[in-house]
């Protein structure tokens, strides 16, 4: 895995922890491939809305609404793939600039 890819996933995990108030969780607790919703981290659709807004803010992309957007948040890996495809602003700080 390239340094850039691992840095991207790390930023995604920080976004998850900060935006979804995952108290007591660290980056190491979140598996790259584990499902975020339902089982896994146990997030719900309210978290999905919050995450969509946060990803848009932090990475300067537009997340598709509705069914089209659902696959984007399947896992940390899926979010990283989406961001790479969307040409996210890799240089932006995690605080959203």
């Amino acid at each position: 895995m390239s340094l850039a890819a691992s840095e991207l996933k790390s930023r995604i995990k920080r976004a998850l922890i900060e935006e979804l108030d995952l108290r007591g969780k660290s980056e190491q607790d979140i598996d790259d491939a584990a499902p975020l919703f339902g089982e896994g981290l146990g997030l719900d659709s309210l978290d999905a809305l919050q995450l969509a807004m946060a990803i848009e803010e932090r990475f300067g992309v537009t997340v598709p609404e509705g069914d089209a957007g659902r696959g984007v948040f399947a896992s940390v890996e899926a979010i990283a793939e989406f961001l790479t495809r969307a040409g996210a602003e890799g240089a932006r700080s995690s605080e959203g600039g």
Partner: protein
Amino acid sequence: MSVSGRRIAVTGVGIVSALGQTAPATFSALMRGERGLSPLSLFDPGDVRSRLVGEVKGLRVTDVAGTGHELSRTDAMAVAAAREAVKQARLAPGARLGVALGGTTGGMFETEAELSRPDLASLSPARAEQLMSYPLSASLAPVAAALGGVVVTRSICSACSSGAIALVQGAAWLERGEVDHAIVGGADGLCRLTVLGFNALGATDAEPCRPFDRARGGLNLGEGAAVLVLEREASAQARGAEVLAWLDGYAVGAEAHHITHPDASAVPAAALLRAALARAGRSPAELGYVNAHGTGTQQNDAMEARALLDVLGASAGSVWVSSSKAQLGHTLGASGAVEAAITVLALSQGAVPPSVGLSEPELAGLRHVRAPQQRQRLDAALSSSFGFGGMSCVLALAASHTRAPERAHRARPIAIRAAISMDAATEPEKRLDPERSRRFDRASSFAALGAELLRRDASTGLVLGTAFGAVERTMAFLARASQRGPRHVPPAEFPHLVPSAPAGNASVYAGLTGPVFAVSDLAQSGEAAVAAGADLLELGVASRIVVGACAPRDSIVERVLGPLLDPGDAERAERGEGAGFLLLEALAADADRSPALALLLGHFQGPLEVSSALSVLPAPEPVAERCLVLLGASSPELLLSLEASSWSRVARRSFASAGGYHEALGAVVLAHGAELAAEGRGVERVLVLSGSKRAFSAFLLGPSPREPES
């Protein structure tokens, strides 16, 4: 016990809505199938998915003498609806009135710009006056001033079931004989907070909404108010008042499931519908109509249709079902009252309003009202409200021609089973499960911990006092929206900004499925919560309820709203953090002997003079040495009235400057009083008093029944 003469009559109705500013105007437009939806004109919300709302246009905002400030739109709608309802009921002069109003945003529209300004210190007197309308309880004073004769008030928030629970509070006052007429309802004006919040949740439909339709796309927001006049059958008969309908049953409960999502199994909703029918003594076969919550969202309507099919069973094909929200928009805290009023009019006129926009129902089996139905013979109806946080209420109404249902109600003594006080050192967050308390603020954490420590079983309820709600958090949300635009406000934040959020969070966290809601009366909010919980227990809608209040730090409340709005309770304005909770329980009639701290022998909370309140709670004669007065305030009005009462020679202790907990102090002092009255300490009566010129409270405690000798 016979219920003859005790049945609760509806003798007046007032409605202000997007379809008209009177009940007849609104109902006839509903029956013509008109929609009151139009593009939002009150303010520019920015880039939102839907601007289609049910806005009340040309609202006449009139001042009411005695309130000292211009009314907010919410308050103006409440006053207009109350005046209409009272005019129809033709109340006798001198009657004792109680006013209970539900809502969620109060004067938010008029104050949100001011309060989200970064520099709040430089408030001009005119600006400060405008802020008087901010709290949820602000509507009570102008309505009371407009009506006269008001002896007790209550401001209720349970998100979208607030207006319905206000009717239950009114029924409780009538059951207690505390008032001659209960003036009950709800009011909620449109504001940026709700438009931006529901937009962030993706809950709004850009098209006119279609409740129960397979292709529904969400809700349209609305605004409005409705007020009903309730009184005893005997009172209506004695004064020859026309009975529009009967309020025979009610059920209040929570799902303990999620802060925004309803329980898709529909099991809690079905149980609540059944409980309201049971309380009314009716079977589904006697129902003619259900005015459903029917918001137009995917989740609510799927859940509600399933619950109705389950409860109506074989009668589903013969009971009309419709939602008025396609025509009025979702009026949030007002909707429970607006829809109760519509249900009363449907019963009294034999006319069923439609579900406009419904073309293909998602679930087969319900008798949806596709077009307005005139000349229907309706005996009984339900009006249901399922709010955020699973806080719900179902009302059972019956047509005036129906006979009284068979039901037995007996008032039961109320015990204080347990009590607990907390302060900042408690650090409630550290004692909660981190995953299940994500996003909890201090208020929610206090409430969740109190609920978990005091709950006995899942049927326990929670009534939580809150003076202002989460002002700082709300203003941060709005500031972010104005700085970055509607797409950048945090969706998960919005459900935590309604004043009932800490109650809802605590209910989900601790698994409480009894009545769950918030009450608001500035520094008296904690006392109001205890009184409201006791009222509901006496009414028999629950067996045990945790009551109390928590006061978190909030810089806007501390610097601006508290000192401005409650100068009479100035000693409470110096805030620390704290919380106090009591577990109240209605004892079984066969003298429950399980351990309790004390009995709650009498209670009063409201704008009545304290001397009147004390006259119904006399000190035992001769005044026993083993009596005690606990003071939660030190206002001159309180002390003078105490001097003039039968309690003047009883020993006192003052807690007025002890806690500094603001709205939580009342519950903290009561918790202390209950400990003092606990069996074996030799104290026979404890009177807990607090209040100022604006509102008073009095609670009389005595020792609990002793364990039988064995």
